[in-house]
């Protein structure tokens, strides 16, 4: 076997040589050549030029050669669709081969070739393979349906493949069942409202049977699917739990965690006095502990999930504190998570141990970890009252070490302890004051100032201390400035005679010399209070404060319930609801709505309908709410054009559509107004896009929930994704849309502003910008003037930023402001621009750099859209 050298590669010569070898008559030489081609493909080199020669090697009896050619085809078919057609015949033939391995291989490969023309030919062989006598072929075909759906969802639905796939859930072979479940789950994710995985007791039984016999990966798919089921009563719930429990002893940690999810969820339905409930609780602890002896990456995910589990059911792990003790060589991300869980498990029973550990950690090397450990000591004091004294003395010990960041963290947490237990530990103030000078972090400074102000009457030299801070007032951060203002006012109210001068000084600093509105306002309020009614001022400023709560960082209960339903997923790692994962997948925000299940868990499960997906209305509603939330939360300030008429009633049997496009919080939306100008009610709306330059496609079905009565108008916001098929349009931003209702299908086209495609992370690093700017060839540069804009460079830059055009740098040359800007498009293309602004001259000159001509054209139209819209 010739050793393939992948480091040295001479493109022109080598390809020529390979071409000759591929066309050789000798089988062995051919195979070696294909191997070489694959080798260079693997390391990312472009060998697409050899396409016809490689495809010629496909018709062979040699299985290895065939596989290699298939590998190559999958990689390059997309760039050479016309050539790929040549391969279709062989595929179709292979799908009929007597050897099931070849049948499966052919159907598997065809599904990986993401070329429309090929997918058309795929349907018939796929249909046959789904009903093949050999389970190996059936299970491969099941996955192929998911592939095809990813390429062309409509085709899959029209061909009825989804129904066939559903039938496979009842297949006699467990592997086929598992793959069918996996494929359906994946398809369901992009079809939030479809009732694909319609679970009923019969299917559940099928799944549980298959669970015992399929591979570990299949078990994960099945368990995750089971977790979406809502049992009818506690008896069914218990019987499912009983059949899932053995999975807790599986060697694959993903299986274990998925089983934990099912159990944690179904357990909610069991009455707590049931013996089985207690047994189950006991069974959950050991597997969770075992996960912590696995590799660090697994530990990390496990710990994030355990963090949720201990919040929901602290009793499971309450005796297992020790396994969370941090080891010297744990990676930092594991250390921090363990610490977090230790505090959650801290109780009167184990606090001595925990404190001893935390003190140990506070002397470690890693600064982040040490800080968190010190904070944790404070949290223990607040959580377990009996331990407060010990915690405070531990903190004092740590302050004595004089390690700068330890002291600062300690002071921050001691402030919280003072707030939790007023008038108990003030004796330590003297020690704290000694360290005043070493504090250089705003949070620590603010905490210390708060302490001095709060206990001014006990600190003899409080005025001196505060005065010393006042010297550099303007250099302090806002947090410290605000604290200082309040502290001095408190001091004044407590010792009015000696501190009059000081308070006047700080009030004037805050109100006259500061341009921070918060500081100014607070200053004025104090000033008014003090000058009009000192008694009232005392009542306000020195009012008794509410005690701080025990644990401030608990996850809010409804979110926690939802996250428990998502144990083992990314949502559980980030402790955010799945709806927060907007990017990445179409329609994830609608996913299976476990929030509703969470809500149903505690209350009356019997009232919940058995079918989960049966509430499309709710799905849409929540989706809209979410979108709105995104829009309000992150106002990008992007310009939204007023709606224009896209489809006129006379051309569309009474349906009139006007609309516009907007980008809100990173989501592209198409805002539509549908008006019914006909005499009869319209229903069954649906929308589809033709292929377009940037692959815009609806992220979900259009939600028109009520029928549209005559003369009624309805506004719909349709989130769009960028994952549709791509075809260059003329002009580039042209979009052809088909809207269907119960009457007919109507077509229209509209143009979207290109600024829609500018993504939020389009700010290029300065260095990269400089380097890229230089590399852009002159041909790709365009220059033009923008007239009659009366904005200065900063305002212009801000406005542009609202549309995700980011200013990287600015410089002023001979009275001209030069702005250097970058834009990134959803498909990853960067556009760089230089904008020259003559101060006082309303005409801008803009130079743009592009990588190719298509972008140039595109950028032209962008600029027109952007600036005319101002």
């Amino acid at each position: 076997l010739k050793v393939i050298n992948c480091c040295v590669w001479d493109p022109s010569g080598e390809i020529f040589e390979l071409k000759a070898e591929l066309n050789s008559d000798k089988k062995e030489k051919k195979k070696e050549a294909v191997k070489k081609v694959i080798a260079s493909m693997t390391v990312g080199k472009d060998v697409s030029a050899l396409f016809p020669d490689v495809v010629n090697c496909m018709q062979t009896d040699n299985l290895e050669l065939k596989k290699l050619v298939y590998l190559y085809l999958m990689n390059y078919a997309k760039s050479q669709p016309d050539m790929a057609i040549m391969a279709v015949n062989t595929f179709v033939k292979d799908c009929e081969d007597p050897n099931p391995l070849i049948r499966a291989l052919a159907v598997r490969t065809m599904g990986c070739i993401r070329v429309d023309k090929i997918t058309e030919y795929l349907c018939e062989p796929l249909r046959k393979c789904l009903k093949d006598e050999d389970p190996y072929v059936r299970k491969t075909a099941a996955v192929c349906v998911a592939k095809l759906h990813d390429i062309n969802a409509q085709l899959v639905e029209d061909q009825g493949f989804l129904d066939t796939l559903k039938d496979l859930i009842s297949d006699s072979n467990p592997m086929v069942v598992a793959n069918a479940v996996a494929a359906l789950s994946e398809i369901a994710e992009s079809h939030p409202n479809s009732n694909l995985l319609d679970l009923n007791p019969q299917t559940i039984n099928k799944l549980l049977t298959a669970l015992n016999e399929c591979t570990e990966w299949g078990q994960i798919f099945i368990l995750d699917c089971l977790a979406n089921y809502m049992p009818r009563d506690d008896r069914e719930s218990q019987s499912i739990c009983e059949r899932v429990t053995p999975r807790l002893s599986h060697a694959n940690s993903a299986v274990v965690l998925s089983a934990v999810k099912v159990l944690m969820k179904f357990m909610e339905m069991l009455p707590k006095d049931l013996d089985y409930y207690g047994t189950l609780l006991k069974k959950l602890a050991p597997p969770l502990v075992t996960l912590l002896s696995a590799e660090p990456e697994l530990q990390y995910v496990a710990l994030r999930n355990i963090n949720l589990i201990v919040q929901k059911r602290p009793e499971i792990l309450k005796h297992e504190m020790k396994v969370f003790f941090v080891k010297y060589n744990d990676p930092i991300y594991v250390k921090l998570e363990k610490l977090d869980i230790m505090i959650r498990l801290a109780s009167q029973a184990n606090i001595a141990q925990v404190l001893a550990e935390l003190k140990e950690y506070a002397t470690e090397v890693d600064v982040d970890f040490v800080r968190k450990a010190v904070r944790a000591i404070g949290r223990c004091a607040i959580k377990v009252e009996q331990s407060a004294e010990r915690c405070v003395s531990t903190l004092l010990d740590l302050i004595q070490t004089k390690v700068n960041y330890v002291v600062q963290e300690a002071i921050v947490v001691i402030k919280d302890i003072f707030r939790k237990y007023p008038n108990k530990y003030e004796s330590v103030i003297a020690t704290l004051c000694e360290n005043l000078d070493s504090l250089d972090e705003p949070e620590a400074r603010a905490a210390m100032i708060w302490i001095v102000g709060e206990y001014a009457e006990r600190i003899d030299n409080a005025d001196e201390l505060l005065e010393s801070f006042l010297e550099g007032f303007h250099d302090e951060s806002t947090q410290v400035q605000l604290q200082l203002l309040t502290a001095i006012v408190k001091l004044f109210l407590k010792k009015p005679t000696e501190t009059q001068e000081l308070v006047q000084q700080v009030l004037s600093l805050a109100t006259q010399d500061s341009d921070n509105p918060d500081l100014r306002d607070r200053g004025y309020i104090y000033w008014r209070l003090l000058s009009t009614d000192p008694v009232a001022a005392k009542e306000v400023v020195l009012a008794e404060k509410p005690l701080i709560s025990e644990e401030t960082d608990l996850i809010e209960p409804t979110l926690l319930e939802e996250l428990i339903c998502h144990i083992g997923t990314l949502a559980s790692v980030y402790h955010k609801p799945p709806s927060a994962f907007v990017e990445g997948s179409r329609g994830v925000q609608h996913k299976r709505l476990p929030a509703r299940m969470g809500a149903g868990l505690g209350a009356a499960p019997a009232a919940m309908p058995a079918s989960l997906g049966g509430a499309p209305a709710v799905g849409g509603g929540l989706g809209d709410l979410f979108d709105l939330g995104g829009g309000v939360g992150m106002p990008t300030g992007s310009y939204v054009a007023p709606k224009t008429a896209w489809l006129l009633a006379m051309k569309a049997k009474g349906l009139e559509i006007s609309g516009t496009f907007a980008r809100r919080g990173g989501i592209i939306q198409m805002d539509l107004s549908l008006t019914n100008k006909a005499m009869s009610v319209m229903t069954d709306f649906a929308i589809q896009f033709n292929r377009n330059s940037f692959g815009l496609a609806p992220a979900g079905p259009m939600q028109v929930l009520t029928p549209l009565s005559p003369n009624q108008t309805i506004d719909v916001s349709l989130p769009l994704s960028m994952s549709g098929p791509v075809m260059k349009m003329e002009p580039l931003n042209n979009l052809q849309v088909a809207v269907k209702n119960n009457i007919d299908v109507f077509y229209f086209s509209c143009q979207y502003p290109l600024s829609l495609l500018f993504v939020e992370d389009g700010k290029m690093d300065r260095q990269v910008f400089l380097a890229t700017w230089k590399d852009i060839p002159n041909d790709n540069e365009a220059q033009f003037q923008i007239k009659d804009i009366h904005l200065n460079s900063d305002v212009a830059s801000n406005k542009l930023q609202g549309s995700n055009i980011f200013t990287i740098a600015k410089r002023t040359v001979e009275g001209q402001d030069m702005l250097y800007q970058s834009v990134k498009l959803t498909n990853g293309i960067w556009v760089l621009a230089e904008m020259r602004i003559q101060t006082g001259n309303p005409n801008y000159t803009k130079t743009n750099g592009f990588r190719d001509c298509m972008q140039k054209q595109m950028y032209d139209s962008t600029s027109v859209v952007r600036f005319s819209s101002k």
Partner: protein
Amino acid sequence: MIHSLFLINNAGDLFLEKHWKSVISRSVCDYFFEAREKAVEPDNVPPVIRTPHHYLINIYREKIFFVSVIQTEVPPLFVIEFLHRVAETFQDYFGECSETTIKDNVVIVYELLEEMLDNGFPLATESNILKELIRPPTILRSMVNTITGSSNVGETLPTGQLSNIPWRRAGVKYTNNEAYFDVVEEIDAILDKSGTTVFAEIQGVIDACVKLSGMPDLTLSFMNPRLLDDVSFHPCVRYKRWESERVISFIPPDGNFQLMSYHISAQNLVAIPIYVKQNISFFETGSSGRLDITVGPKQTMGKTVECLVVTVHMPKVVLSANLSATQGTYNYDPVTKILLWDIGKLNPQKLPNLKGSLSLQSGAPKPEENPSLNIDLKIQQLAISGLKVNRLDMYGEKYKPFKGVKYVTKAGKFQVRT
């Protein structure tokens, strides 16, 4: 599901990519490089990295980052487990999992990856099945292949892939039928300054090497199965029988595999085989310090402690160590700041001691952190938990196999604080 895989070496070179769906530009790895830079140490790179459009889930093995790209909600543990499987398969095929071996066998690697996932769904991950589909490279075979023109890809449907026992291939034949089991226990422990156990637990595994013909059905039983309350089994083990009878009944895979792993938790009393008396101190002035470590046997159940190694992670300011050891050799690496004392066999009559002075960077303040000691050791013929195999029975085949059980105890993450 799993969308793409990138392999990146320690220097940050991306040397292999594989896409199971549409191609994702390798620029997505920029987010990984950013995280990698931030983490400083390669071990500290967070396993899950969020980017605007994708998630990067990575593991770090043998100086290689396996970075997978996912686009939809996928259980991260599923991805991590799969990546481990990939690394293990490379190890299995090429003897080691390194950049060089991967590059040398790039076509096989590509074939394997193609076989392991289909559209992001795991396809064949069992080493038995893979080896039937794609034969591992051997010098002999590659020679034979070049001469006879035969290939290294299987021509038949792998038999295991569809049967109810996918882990075993059919028609296994041996002249010497043998079944060996290794009970390996690792003690994870933290001892504090005074030698008190802060935390100790045992991670045990039973590794098997089974070379038996046909379809043997084995039953392994223990003298004291009660010790095991937290176990994970290889998929071949019949869980029902374990639950009801506390015996391990299984049809074994062919060759080497891990039969089960178990965990004896901190709540049980764990025997600690050695004690460490240590004193490491730094003086306020003079830029120096002292070190004095003695190791002695504690609960060894009458066995000898071997391969004893003490590792000390010194603070950064320690420049050199001038020590003398009564037994074994020591070495201080001023770059990594690791002091390694290789003791060897522990002699209870004459306890090994290491002592002397440490010199610090002049002018540097006294180090704040306490160094931590890591202990490595090995005890043959002993499972420290007391676990004992009672007997191994074979059904379903007529021949009489050779059987054997070995015990060994090692230190896992065994740490002594100072």
